[in-house]
């Protein structure tokens, strides 16, 4: 059975001081052949003359020392408190109105909320149009220095547009259903 798990946390001491995501990634498995090659290259100080040049070059590259600034980079940690999913209903001058669904407490009723465009990142502003959907998170962020701040983040969803072929397929399927329903 193909394995789609992560096989746990890294168990090497040198990953302790890295940020969570880098530590996690260091244990993600690459293919058995590469993994075996990496393990061998890390534990074996002799040069394997039998190993092809391209593989040796590759192993040398992936096992190169990581610069210190990378190893010790620790990002700010966000703790989300509440999450809503919103859909833009109407765009106004400098603001937009959205219907938001509470994803943290789904029993809460949907609400209409007005957002200032300033709350949206410059790159997401072009996505603000009726029908666009976004995540709205409220939480607490802890900086690497331990500072705590309340944050409120609006993040527009980046979903690919419909391909012409997909639209044609959908129209064809709708046509067949309509034919079936209204044939009599």
């Amino acid at each position, binding site marked *: 059975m193909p394995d789609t*798990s992560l096989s746990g946390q890294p168990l090497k001491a040198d990953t302790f001081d890295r940020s*969570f*995501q*880098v530590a*996690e990634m260091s244990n993600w498995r*690459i*293919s058995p052949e590469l993994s075996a090659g990496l393990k061998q290259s890390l534990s074996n100080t002799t040069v394997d003359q039998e190993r092809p040049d391209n593989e040796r070059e590759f192993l040398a590259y992936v096992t190169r020392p990581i610069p210190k600034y990378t190893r010790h980079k620790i990002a700010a940690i966000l703790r989300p408190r509440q999450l809503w999913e919103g859909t833009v209903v109407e765009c106004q001058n400098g603001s937009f109105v959205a219907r938001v669904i509470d994803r943290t407490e789904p029993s809460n009723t949907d609400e209409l909320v007005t957002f200032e465009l300033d709350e949206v990142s*410059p790159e997401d502003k072009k996505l603000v149009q009726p029908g666009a959907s976004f*995540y709205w998170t409220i939480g607490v962020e802890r900086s690497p220095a331990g500072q705590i701040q309340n944050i409120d983040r609006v993040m527009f969803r980046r*979903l690919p547009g419909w391909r012409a072929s997909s639209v044609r397929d959908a129209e064809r399927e709708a046509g067949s259903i309509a034919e079936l329903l209204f044939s009599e």
Partner: protein
Amino acid sequence: MPEHTPEFSGSVIVLVGSFNPAIFQPEWFARNGLLPQGEVDSAELQVIHPHLCQFETESFTFQITTDRFTAATKPNTIAGPLQDLILGTFYVLEHTPVQAMGMNRVLHFAMESEEAWHRLGDKLAPKEPWNDILKGRPGMRNLDILTQRESPKGSSLTVKVQPSLLIQPGVYFEINDHYAASGSAGLKSMMEILRNQWETSQKKGEEIARHILEWAAA
């Protein structure tokens, strides 16, 4: 009883199949409108090689090899954008051969005391069989529990429990919600599952971890 809240949590999607790592460079994600250009410009490239592509952006980390595509959220960020990213990526690469998909949830919980931490390990893996033969204090290092589901065929759920390496005393849970693709519509079926099951799967992962923590504390 207070509700257990993870100190660190993350979501990871793993696809097993056939991939071309050289495609998956940060710029490719921006060109296809899947990541903001600013996030791509500040991406940290770790390895770009025909056999392996590894980089991280503000929101995600990626590792792609010829047989495995792995994308993860940064810690404690919301899981929805990762689902969007993978659905978008494989909408663009619609002919990618995929054999299996794992929707993973990783959680690190702080334990209230070392005693409570040992109690959890002792309840999950009783030490009676070991105490007579092993010297010292045997402890649980890793526990995997697998359950095969009848439907969809080839799907399973694995829960891994380990002492947390980030929090001491703390416990690490890794929940792997695994689906096997069948036939030629492998990618399509996996994306359908991802679209419909992602949120439920992520919530189920937390529910399992909380259940075990509450059971151990009782």
